[in-house]
Every structure is written in C-alpha cells, then in structure tokens.
C-alpha cells in the first residue's frame, strides 16, 4: 500500500513537471480564484462589520478554511472524479475495473493532482495569518476537521459522478453541484435554521467551510463536531452502495 502511494506521488510529480504549461495554468487559476474571493470579502469588510454570526476578521478566517479544504480536495480528488466520469462515458472504465485494486483507491491514486499543491503554501500562510488576526491558536481538532472536510468533498463528487453509471448526464448535474459549492463560501448563519441544517446534515456543504471554522473559533456544538468527523465514513458507505448498484447497470461506453 505504502509503495503504491509513493509511486503514485512520483508519477503525479513527473506528469506535472512534464506538462509545465498545465502546472503554471493550475497555479494561476488557483491564485486568481483564492485572491479574487478573498479580495471580495476583504473589500466588503471595509463597510460591513457583521456577517451573520461572524465579525469581519472571522469571515476572512472562514473563507480561508474553505480554501484549504478546496485545495486538499483538488490535490487528491479533483482529477480523479472528472476522469472517472469521462471514463464511464467513453468505456475506458472497463480497464479500471480489471485492475487488481479497489476501484476508488485505484482511480484516486492514479490521478493525484500535483499542480494544485503549488498554491497550498500560500493558502496555509493565509489561513495562519487569519488565525493570528482572530487571536486563535491552531489546534489538532481543527486540522483534522479540514482533512475530514476535504475527503467528504471528494466523496460527494464521486457520488455525483457515479450517477453516470446509471446513464445520467452527470456533467449537467455537476454544474449545479459546483454552484451549490459556492454556498460554502457564504456564512452559514445567514441562512434560515432549516436550510442551514439541511446544508450541514443532508447535503453537507457547510462541512467544507462553516464547521471547521466554527471548531477553531470554538462556536460549534458537540453534535456538529461529531458529525464533521463521522460524515466521511457515512458518505463513503453511501458511495459504496451507489457504486455497487451502478456497476450492475453499467454498460461499457454509452457514448
């Protein structure tokens, strides 16, 4: 297992170095995405002091939590989920199925996305700076919650793309899902309680931003903390069930 991970990382690095234009494009796009969103909120904090339950400084921390989660997701899962969706449509998924490895593990390790790591140091510094602004110390539960959220994001996208196995056009759905992800950039407390709960416990989008931020700000309830660490396990089971059912319906190369 360890040697497979090491080889996957090596492969990913070699691939990234070989296609340098792609590496630079990833870096530029990431930098633009994070800078533009951060700048947007920073500009708003010049005039707005209260963002739901969060102060100006806290909302900047909130948004940098989401950046970190999004970045870790981009490194581990982004390439894998889109390749998975494409390979089901084109029929290349047959070859993935023949590999002597669990399918999700194989797809993820084969498609690690090294270029996304280019912006990770910048995001870590930004997040630590925001922690410093809020006069908060970095804690282990917070770090775990960030990783837990990134894994959950990957699992959710896998679930969406596995709908392709049922002959559904996942690329039409993924546009809506991507837009739903932008919900994570908004403060959770601006939504009515029912909507907020729905977006934490059913479509757990606020687990990508609000809950890790609330954990480090010491604003989360015990139930939210438990759910943050437990949700990836539960959604992994859901994915396994959907994959199992989907593989029964799967026909090679529907396009």
């Amino acid at each position: 297992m360890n040697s497979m991970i090491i080889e996957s990382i090596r492969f990913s690095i070699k691939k990234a170095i070989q296609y340098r234009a792609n590496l630079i494009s990833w870096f530029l796009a990431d930098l633009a995405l994070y800078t533009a969103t951060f700048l947007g909120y920073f500009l708003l904090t010049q005039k707005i002091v209260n963002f739901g339950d969060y102060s100006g400084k806290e909302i900047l921390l909130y948004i940098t939590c989401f950046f970190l989660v999004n970045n870790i997701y981009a490194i581990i899962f982004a390439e894998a989920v889109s390749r998975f969706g494409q390979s089901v449509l084109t029929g290349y998924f047959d070859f993935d199925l023949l590999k002597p490895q669990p399918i999700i593990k194989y797809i993820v390790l084969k498609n690690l996305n090294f270029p996304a790591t280019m912006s990770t140091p910048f995001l870590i510094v930004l997040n630590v700076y925001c922690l410093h602004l809020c006069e908060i110390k970095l804690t282990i539960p917070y770090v775990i919650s960030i990783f837990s959220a990134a894994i959950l994001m990957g699992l959710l996208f896998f679930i969406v793309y596995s709908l392709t196995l049922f002959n559904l056009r996942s690329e039409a759905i993924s546009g809506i899902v991507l837009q739903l992800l932008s919900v994570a950039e908004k403060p959770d407390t601006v939504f009515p309680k029912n909507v907020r709960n729905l977006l934490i416990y059913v479509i757990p989008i606020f687990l990508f931003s609000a809950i890790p931020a609330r954990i480090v700000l010491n604003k989360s309830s015990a139930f939210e903390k438990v759910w943050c660490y437990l949700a990836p396990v539960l959604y992994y089971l859901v994915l396994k069930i959907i994959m199992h059912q989907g593989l029964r319906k799967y026909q090679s190369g529907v396009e």
Partner: protein
Amino acid sequence: MKSMRVFFGYFSYSTKKFLMYRVYLISEVLSSLILPIILNFFLWKSLLEANPINYNLKEMMRYIIISNVILLFTQIHVEYDLERDIKTYRLGQKLLLPVSYLTSISYRYISTSLATFAIIYLPIIIATSFFTGIDVQVIRILYFVITLIVGFLLNAMFSFIIGSLSFWLTEIWGIAAIRNLLTGLLSGAIFPLDILPEKIESIMLITPFPYMTYVPSKLICDPNFNIQIVNRGLIISIFWVLGLSFIAFLLMKNGLKKYTSNGA
C-alpha cells in the same frame, strides 16, 4: 445587405442550437441564475439587517438579479474556440473559407449572445423591472443599450486577447480563469460598487470592469444614478475598447505570421 443576410443565417443557427439541448438550457438557468439569486437573497437579507448600507433588500435584489443577467450576457468565451482552432489544423482550414475568420467568429458569438439575451435574459430584466416597480426614463434606456454594447465589446476584447495568446502559449485556461474571476468581482456583479468606500469605488471606475456590469445595471435599477458617471465612464470605456482592440489586432497579426498548419 449581404452582411446582414450572413448574420441572420448565424442568428437562426444559434437560436436553433440553443433550443435544441434543453437539459443544458435548464441546467444553465438553474446554476447561473436561480441558485445565485436564492443564495444572494439570504446573504443580503442577513447583511442588510445587521449593517447600515444605503440599500434596502428590494433594491439590492433588483440590482443583484439585473447585474447577474447583464454579466451573463456580456461575458463571452471566444478564447476557448480560438485556442482550439489555433492549436489544431482548424484555423488553417477556416482561413480558406469565403467568410473571413474574424467575421465568422464574431457573428457566431454575437448571434449566440443575442439569442440567449432575447430568450432568457430580456424577459428576466423586464419581469424584474415590472415586479419591483422601476420607472426607467427613455434616455436611460438609450444609455443602457449603449453601455451594454460597450460592456460586451470590452469583454469580447479581453476574451479575444487571451485566445490569441494561444499562438505563443500551450495552455491559456489559467489566464482565462483570472479574467473570469476578476470580471466577476470587479465588474460589480457580486455586490454594487457604491457600497464600498468612495476612494475604492473611484479607483475601480478607472478600470474597464465596472462598465461590463455595474454601470448598465445601475442605469436600470437606480433612477438617481449620476448620469455624469455614465458620461465619463463611456469616454473611459471607449478608450479601453480602442486600446484593447489595438492589442488584439497586433496579437492576431503577429500570431498569423507565426502560425503553421499541415495535414488533415
């Protein structure tokens, strides 16, 4: 006359293509319009309750809906088509067609944008104006049309410049992403620029971005919007259009000298 006939041919093709894939049409409306509007409603409802801003919820929602619609109309993505053509044999083939390459690509995008505008965006602007009770003067509608055209041209020029970079660069999607995000933020589609401190707003008004969304939206949404800002803005934005067109022209001219195509 002949040119108009060619354009209407493109327009008819774009309308048919647009109405053909209805799943994508619905998905586009849901993801680009309905969802952002719902999200913004909750966000601004909460922010306006807790912070003193010179907008009420109705005014803010009116602005957000119209500015998003205008951004969707003015933001075109020629760069990806240009990139595909330049990186493959296609440009070589298209240069040999009886319609000039630039005319063909411009007509295609203008007709697609007009078809989308007429079918989706215009009814939304009219419905929003009607339900939120905006009383727009005729002169402002005229200004609105002019600023909309200028906004479209500004966006098209940015897109064209980025696409033309494909003559020299292997990948342009990183640069395209920067442009998309900057346009989204600085054009005033996320929030009206006049809620920012005056100094920041005046700096932004020198850049081309507010003329893509903010100025046209304010013309429709705010009956008291200072028309002097629009007049000054039109001069600034026309300078930007001319400057960007010159850069695009130079890039295309030099790029075509460098371009080689063979096979297929």
